[in-house]
C-alpha cells in the first residue's frame, strides 16, 4: 500500500502563498475582469451564422419538401396552401435549431435570424404556421449597448453603442438548374405516381400503340425532385441543365 502524505510547506512558503492569494483578490476587487452581460440592457453581438428563429419567403419556395425531409427532429410539417402548393411550418417545441433546413433549401427560401428570445404562453402556441413564419416575431429591444467577447489571451469585454443587426443579409444560393429525366424507360411500369406527384404538371403519360411513354417537359420542370423520390422503380434522376442548353 502506498500512503500519500500531505505536502508540508515551510512557514515562509505558506505565508507567501497566503499573501499571493490576498493580493490576487485585492487586484480583482479593484479592477475586476467581469464577463457578465446584463442581458435585457446589453446584448451580446452574435455571429451572422447564428442559429436562431427561422424566417420564410414563400415567393422563393418551390415546394420541394427538402426541409421537411432533412429535419432530424421532425419539427417541419408541409402544409397545403390555398394556391395548391405545400409550404413548411415549424413546431418550435420540437425544433432543435440545427438549421439543416436552411442549409438544405436549394432556393434560399428559409432565412436564419439572430432572434433567440421568443416567448410562448403554451405548447400549442409554439407551433408556427407558414403565415407567421413570413414576418419576424414582435421583439422588444431594451439594450443600449452591444457586448462582444474578445479572446486576447484573457477574455475582454468590448462594448459598443451600435446595436446588433438581428437579420443578417445572407447571399442566396447559386441556383443549380436541374430537371428530371427517365434514365431507364424499359423498367418503367407506368404507374403514374410521378405524374400525380408533379406540382407543375410537367410529366405526362402518352400511349403509343401498346407502349406507354413518359414525357417530361423540360421547360416546365424546375427540378424539385419529388418524382425522383416517389418513383417506385427508381428510374428517374435529376440532371443538370447544361449552360449552352439554357
Amino acid at each position, binding site marked *: 500500500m502506498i500512503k500519500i502524505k500531505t505536502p508540508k510547506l515551510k512557514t515562509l512558503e505558506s505565508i507567501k502563498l497566503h499573501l499571493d*492569494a*490576498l493580493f*490576487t*483578490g*485585492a487586484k*480583482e*476587487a479593484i479592477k*475586476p*475582469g*467581469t*464577463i*457578465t452581460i*446584463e442581458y435585457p440592457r446589453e446584448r451580446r453581438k452574435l455571429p451572422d451564422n447564428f442559429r436562431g428563429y427561422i424566417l420564410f419567403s414563400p415567393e422563393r419556395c418551390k415546394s420541394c419538401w427538402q426541409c421537411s425531409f432533412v429535419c432530424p427532429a421532425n419539427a417541419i410539417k408541409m402544409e397545403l396552401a390555398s394556391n395548391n402548393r405545400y409550404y413548411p411550418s415549424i413546431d418550435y417545441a420540437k425544433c432543435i435549431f440545427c438549421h439543416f433546413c436552411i442549409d438544405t433549401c436549394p432556393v434560399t427560401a428559409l432565412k436564419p435570424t439572430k432572434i433567440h428570445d421568443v416567448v410562448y404562453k403554451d405548447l400549442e402556441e409554439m407551433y408556427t404556421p407558414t403565415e407567421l413564419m413570413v414576418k419576424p416575431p414582435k421583439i422588444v429591444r431594451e439594450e443600449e449597448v452591444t457586448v462582444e467577447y474578445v479572446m486576447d489571451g484573457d477574455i475582454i469585454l468590448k462594448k459598443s453603442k451600435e446595436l446588433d443587426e438581428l437579420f443578417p443579409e445572407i447571399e442566396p444560393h447559386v441556383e443549380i438548374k436541374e430537371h428530371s429525366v427517365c434514365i431507364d424507360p424499359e423498367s418503367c411500369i407506368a404507374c403514374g405516381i410521378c405524374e400525380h406527384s408533379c406540382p407543375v404538371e410537367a410529366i405526362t403519360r402518352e400511349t403509343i400503340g401498346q407502349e406507354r411513354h413518359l414525357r417530361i417537359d423540360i421547360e416546365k420542370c424546375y427540378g424539385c425532385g419529388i418524382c425522383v423520390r416517389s418513383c417506385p422503380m427508381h428510374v428517374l434522376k435529376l440532371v443538370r441543365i447544361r449552360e449552352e442548353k439554357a
Partner: protein
Amino acid sequence: MNVNGLSGLNELLNELLSLLSMQHFLQNQVSIPLIQPIIDLLLSMPFVGYLVALILWKPMFALLIFPGLGTLMAVLLFIIWFERKLTARIQWRKGPVEILRQAGGVIQALADGMRYFFQEVIVHRDAHKPYFLQFPILIFIPVLLPLLFIPAGSIVGIESPYSLAIAVALISLIPVFIVAIGWASNSRYAYIGTIREAFMYFAYEIPFILAVISMILLYGTADMVEIVEKQNIPGIFLNPVAAFIFFLTTVMATSRLPFEIPEADQEIAFGPFVEYSGIMFGLVMTITYEKMYILALLMSVLFLGGGNGPDIPLLGNLSGVLWLFVKAMAIMVLLSFLRSIYARLRLDQALRLSWNTLMKISLLSLAIGIVANIAFGLGW
C-alpha cells in the same frame, strides 16, 4: 411616620425627578457644532425638546445611535449587501443589482428583510417550540449589551473599570445561545452544526481571551476609556502578535471563511439555523454579522486607538464616533474580503490550527504584553 421620614422620601423623589429632568440630560449632551442651530430650535419646542435632549444625552446616544441600535442596523444592511457585492466582483459576477439600480442594489438587504417579514414562520413538529422561538430573540441580549461598554470618543454608555472584561464575557455568551438554538431545532443538520459550533467555540475562545488579557496586561487596565486614552501608539504596533490572534479568532468566532465550519451552507445548509424560516431566519442569519460588528469595534478600540484621530471641530463629539466607525468598517470590509479568497477548512484542520499554533502564539503575546507594559511605562 414622622416628619423626618417624609422629608427624606421627598428628597429621594426630588432627586429622581431631577435625574429625569431636561437639565440633567443637557449637562451631559453630545455637542455637534455643525447642526447646533437645528438642535437649539428643536430643544425650544415643548415636547420634542425633551425627546431630543434625551436622545442627545450621551448614554442614551450610545444606546440608540452609536455604537448602539441605529448604527448596528445600518451596518447590518450595508455589510450584507457589501459582502455579496465584493465577492461577486472578485469572482467576475455582478452581485445584487436590480433593487435600486442607480445605487447598485444597495437596499437589497432591506428588501430581503421585508420579504422575511411576510413569510411564514414554520415550527416543525420535532422542535422544542418555546426555546425554538425564544432564543433568536433572547440572543440580542449578549449581542446588544457589549455595545454599551464601547467608548466612541467621549460617548460611552456605561463606564466601568471592568468594561473590557464584561464585554468579552457577554460576547462569549453568544455561542451558548447558538448551541441552544441548535438543540431546540432538533434535526440532524442542526445537530452536526451545533457540534461543530461547540468545537469551534472551545478552540477559538481560549486564544481570544488570552489575546485580550495580553492587551489588559499591556495597558495595565481593563477600562476601555482608559485604554483608548493610553494609546498614543496604536496597540497593533505595541503587540502585533495579539492583534493577529485577535483578528484570526474574530474570523473563527463570526464563522467567516476559511472557518465557516458551523454554518457551511454547501454541506449542512446553515448548520444550527437550518430549520428556521421567515423573519426568524432573518434574525438568526444576522447574528454572525452582529458579532462581527461588535468584535470589529472591540478590535479598533484595543488595537487601532478607538476614537482617537485628527479632531474635526465642526463635528464636535461626533469626531470620535466617526473615527471609530471608519476603523470598525475597515476591519469589517477586510473580514468580508476573506470570504472570496479562501476555501473552507475541515473541522480537524481548524481545531489543530487553533489548539496547536494559535495557543502557542497567544502565550507568546502574553509575554509581549508584559514586556511592552514595562518597556513603554504604561503603568498599572
